[in-house]
């Protein structure tokens, strides 16, 4: 009798493992950080792209506005693809786009902007990528929506597209 209970428990255990592994197969094994946490906007000091002077974040995110922070680089191919969407967003008067130039060569970055247009009201330099870490970013492109209360309310990993553009517009209302 004892043996049979033992056997039953073991069989149950293996069935449990089987179910877990079966479900686990469908989950991706690549990790992406959680994009739904609402976080406070970090306070930082950075350099301006054109003026090459130091800027304090509190002076950038001033107005009672929505801000969109976009991390980009001239060497990043998907950034080119999402650029037209950024240009469209920049026509919206109720938001301001702030660009973060990530791990880039200043001349190459300037050429990128000259060629494709500048959607940003201000661009910051993040040569070492340390500023991106403050935002919890780990690659390019990534885009953040910052609301009027200086909180990061949404994060997009990867290039923006038409579908995400609609999502952003909904947020802004």
């Amino acid at each position, binding site marked *: 009798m004892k043996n049979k209970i033992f056997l039953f428990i073991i069989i149950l255990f*293996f069935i449990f493992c089987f179910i877990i592994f079966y479900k*686990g*197969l469908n*989950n991706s094994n690549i990790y992406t950080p959680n994009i739904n946490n609402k976080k406070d906007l970090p306070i930082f000091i950075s350099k301006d792209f054109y003026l090459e002077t130091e800027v304090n974040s509190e002076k950038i995110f001033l107005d009672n506005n929505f801000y969109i922070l976009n991390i980009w680089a001239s060497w990043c191919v998907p950034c080119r693809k999402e650029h037209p969407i950024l240009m469209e967003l920049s026509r919206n008067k109720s938001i301001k786009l702030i660009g973060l130039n990530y791990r880039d060569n200043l001349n190459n970055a300037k050429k990128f902007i000259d060629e494709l247009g500048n959607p940003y009201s201000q661009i910051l330099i993040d040569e070492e990528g340390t500023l991106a870490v403050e935002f919890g970013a780990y690659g390019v492109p990534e885009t953040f929506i910052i609301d009027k209360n200086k909180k990061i309310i949404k994060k997009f990993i990867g290039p923006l597209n038409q579908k995400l553009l609609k999502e952003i517009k909904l947020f802004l209302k």
Partner: protein
Amino acid sequence: MLANQIGYYSLILGLVLSFILSAVSIKDFYNNNQGINQKVLSLSFLQFFFVIISFLSLILSFINSDFSNETVFNNSHTTKPLFYKISGTWGNHEGSLLLWLLVLTLFIFLFLIKSNEQPKKYRILTLLFQQVIIIGFFLFLLKTSNPFNYLFPIPKEGLGLNPILQDPALAIHPPILYLGYVGSSIIFSASLSAVTQNYVSKEWAKHIKKWILISWIFLTLGIMLGSIWAYYELGWGGFWFWDPVENVSLMPWLTLTALLHCVVVLERRIALTSWIIILSIATFMLSMCGTFLVRSGILNSVHTFANDPERGIFILIFLFVLIFLSLGIFFLFHKENNKNLDKIFWLSKEASILINNWFLMYFLSVILIGTTYPIFLDVISAQKISVGPPFYHKLIVPFLIPFLVFMSLGPKLDWIKSKVENKFSLIIFFIISIFLSFFILRKLTPGVLFNTVLISPAFYLFFITTKDLFIKKFKNLSQSIAHFSFSMLLLSILFNSILSLEIITNIKVGEKYNFDKGQIFFQKLEKNKNSNYNSVIGHFKINNNKGKIIYLKPELRIYNQPVTITSEADIKTTLLADTFLVMNLVKGKEYFNIRYQVKPFMIWIWISVLLLSLGGLMSLLKKKYEK
């Protein structure tokens, strides 16, 4: 082209043969004659023969760079050197599964011809259980991982193989490892067969021990080759990272080691029979589970193969079919022994082997839980966590200490019951170990107390086993060598980890970098062109405060198909330490990032593992020299 056809149809024939072979052997099972029908042996050989033909066809396709074969296209390139074209055959998912089949069919054939003195029904049942596994793999191969898929139109060039994988150690690592891993399938089949036939006896122990040793030796060597490759190729100077794929090879090794010790007991008395059956089943199940974890894409690892959920589901179902089959057979057929023989006296060799099993199973559970827990957590509560080296170190290292002490004392006990003789010398050695460790470590490292506690038992095992080697001479030579090399392995690993020096810094050509033990001088850069890559070699001169000078030349290789940059470390090996320098480009900057490491006793780690395998080999050949 033709090779493709031959390869594919050979596989089909092999599968068909499985069914024919099973039918013929079942018929022979009920036949009352003495030995196995010759037909069974011939069919088994024929099955192996077809798998070899298939395997050779694939190799031929690789050599000819026949890109009409999808596997060749994905994994080869016309400019790859011949040796790596050949080894590329088994360096990919489909080809490695063909290697599985090769070893499965080879081992069952060898088993049949080498087991003539064994009971007939036992041999046939072993064959049948093995065929279940073989059929499973044929189906897996043909349905989800066919090495002979056609591509049309035929591409002109292949996708090439990662240059990091073009390395001699990595080329022979899979075949050797598989002889170990897959070789444990025979132990699995034979144990299930022995249980049903109530043949778990001393005679069976003597016979199965040989197969356990063969599997164990190859598994040990296979793991060592993987570590050697990681150390020389990957550029971080480490040889073990607790990566899922590494863990997956270590787990069957642990159960196999425990099994080996249990079988040594079974050779002398009927005891630990449940342990033996369970460990035999567990070893092969862990190999299969490992195959699942690595090839299904369920885990995130540096070395996973190309992933495909369909393959994952197939292996998962196959694995659990085998598990439930084994459970069924074990519970149906295993007979508990006479209660009188069950209990083991506490101060005896059997008891120490039981304790050995206890610790080995604990280490196994740490590794198994650490590797699979993230999967469970992710499925149950969608939380993603990582389990890495710190977890394994914290849970394993403290338990190594009593383990090493038990390992020193265990072999000294007698069978059945022991009076403790030579207590005096045992205690003296213990005290010497502690003092020796303390005085050595005092000068070398700040964490004296902790490290002394760790190193003393390793030294203790070392002294005891050395003494045994000299005093016992040929009696039980294999055990002495094996335990001695294990102690040497642990000492090397411990000293290596405590005394390693590493420096990372950025440096320009012509610059000198000073550190507290010496100076690194980046002399110059040299540029070269090779057959399939361009190389940039850095010339470094390193002198330490004692006046010793070493020249190291790490290399950066720029391959063109596919475009990759790899970093080749320059390693100078001496008996005392390895000096290790690797150089990396820093994006957009003129300077290079270098890692300089001094790793004491590295070569002793490899020597110890080789000696360990030698110990196993001696046990295999024991009858020959004991006569």
